């Protein structure tokens, strides 16, 4: 509860930052609310009036705040649609991609880190660590390009674009299989860096835990490596891993902008790219707000999960 209270000022600050960007836009702030293209003068005047841009700055900020809190993120003149509905239309695709990538990165990362820690210092551990260090250095959009090059262009195994077959989504199992085929490459491209990061953090914190006395005690009770790992080490190592996952949600959302662009994935990231190309500022700011809210939410969620996993955090 205290955490939730703590998140509220952060959210307000994010909204005010958005307003600050509008106010600081070079030239006319209306431009930031309309988008940088020739909208009719009457429309611009309407926006100026609606947002109180003829009023003093504090009132402007307050009006903006109230509007946003009412769920009004403005109107995308470029798309002739309210920003909220524009974003909502793309949200599912991004959640699908980011969710898959995050789940994959978390599960595979934790397993890899755990196994690597288990074989601490051995060949497997060293090879894994080397691979993880490299993986963490790869820009996700380049990984995407290389995956397209290998698996779509050279081998021709997987599609390189979109969220489902160009010929339209099939129903039933065929549709699901088709969706997965399209999801595979972008999800891998997006998850690679986070997988590496999560694996590294997992490995370090499991190594820490494996050296702890209670692990010795468990082994003295006859617990084997697997039980030690899953019964004790993972749960105790969870806090830093969870923090890493929560802390990086903002980055993974941003990474999805790049990956969605490479793979033509019809999500928020792609929308962001398009709105940058068409200087559709209201959409851009709406996405910034959404992503920030997601990050605040993710941190909150991390805290809650952390609390569930670790009884010491009261």
């Amino acid at each position, binding site marked *: 509860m205290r955490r939730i209270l703590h998140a509220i000022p952060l959210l307000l600050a994010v909204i005010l930052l958005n307003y600050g960007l509008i106010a600081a836009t070079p030239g006319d702030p209306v431009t930031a609310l309309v988008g940088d293209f020739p909208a009719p003068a009457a429309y611009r005047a309407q926006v100026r009036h609606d947002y109180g841009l003829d009023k003093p700055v504090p009132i402007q900020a307050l009006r903006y705040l109230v509007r946003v809190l009412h769920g009004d993120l403005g109107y995308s003149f470029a798309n002739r649609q309210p920003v909220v509905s524009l974003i909502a239309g793309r949200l599912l695709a991004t959640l699908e991609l980011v969710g898959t990538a995050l789940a994959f990165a978390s599960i595979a990362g934790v397993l890899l880190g755990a196994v690597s820690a288990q074989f601490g210092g051995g060949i497997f551990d060293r090879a894994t660590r080397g691979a993880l260090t490299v993986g963490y250095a790869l820009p996700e959009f380049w990984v995407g390009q290389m995956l397209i090059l290998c698996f779509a262009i050279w081998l021709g195994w997987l599609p390189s674009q979109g969220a489902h077959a160009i010929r339209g989504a099939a129903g039933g199992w065929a549709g699901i299989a088709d969706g997965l085929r399209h999801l595979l490459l972008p999800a891998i491209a997006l998850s690679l860096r986070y997988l590496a990061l999560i694996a590294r953090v997992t490995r370090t914190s499991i190594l820490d835990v494996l050296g702890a006395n*209670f692990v010795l005690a468990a082994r003295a009770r006859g617990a084997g490596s697997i039980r030690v790992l899953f019964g004790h080490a993972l749960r105790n190592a969870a806090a830093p891993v969870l923090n890493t996952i929560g802390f990086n949600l903002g980055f993974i959302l941003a990474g999805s902008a790049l990956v969605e662009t490479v793979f033509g994935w019809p999500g928020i990231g792609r929308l962001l790219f398009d709105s940058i190309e068409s200087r559709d500022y209201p959409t851009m700011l709406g996405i910034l707000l959404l992503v920030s809210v997601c990050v605040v939410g993710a941190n909150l969620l991390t805290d809650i999960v952390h609390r569930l996993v670790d009884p010491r955090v009261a």
Partner: protein
Amino acid sequence: MTPPVLALRNLSVAIQGGPRIVEDVSLDVAAGEMVGLVGESGSGKSMTAYAALGLFPAPRVRIEAGAILLEGRDLAMLSQKEWRALRGSRIGMVFQDPAGFLDPVLPAGRQIAEALIVHGDRRGLAARVRALLAQVDLPESVALRYPHELSGGQKQRVLIAAALAMRPVLLIADEPTTALDVSVQAGILKLLDGLRQELGLAVLLISHDLAIVAQTCTRVFVMYAGQIVESGPTEAVFAAPRHPYTQGLLASLLDPQVRSELYAIPGTVPAAGMSPPGCRFHPRCPRARADPCALRPPVLTMRADGRMDRCWLADAD
């Protein structure tokens, strides 16, 4: 005659490719008997105890030579899997700092049940956990509490309950009261002693505190720099210590003014592999002579009364 529950025969423990930490240690513990192993920290007594579990807190520590006989069966040759089957079922262990040896994210009951679970004995788990809690004089509600919600003494009781879950024949207690308040210490010791009697446990009590050993143990082994330097019935040893080290320990115990400063023996235990030639204790020994103490290592010698010591000067008295 039944063999002792635990018998260590000429046990040596070494860091792989490095010095010996424990050298040529022999001791035994019979059923229903509590035996003390004393010495300053760093003297190798904990390592001796861990060796009896086939488990070491640090990597690259190995049993190098000797035999570990549990109820007459040599454990030194066992595979990891076979060791695992014994740990927690035939041998239980209680540790020095109960706070660190309990998993902070698991409720106490789960940790008590762990030995039962890993040894595949899941029948009536909850009831048995309750029984174990009762056995260590803890209320049932403790089962659901997390370690950070328990007091030091309660934590140690939980650890003892966990160690006893599978009804082991041997309990190794490594400084079980060191981290506890003096007022709590007595309770734990009483509990251990009660369990020994009640269950016919063999208990190996490791401690640097002679007072505790004097209270509870029938026999005592004194370790210095990885070796046994004196052993015998507690009363006899404490009444008339033969090794100057034992004498020093006792002196510091008996003198209330120095007791608070732990030990009055000047200097420290040499690190493994750094022992001086001759008697390992001679640099700190108030009675040491240039010859033979500094020249030739003394051997552990059994005296006429059955007590043993490792001192050139012991029979000179």
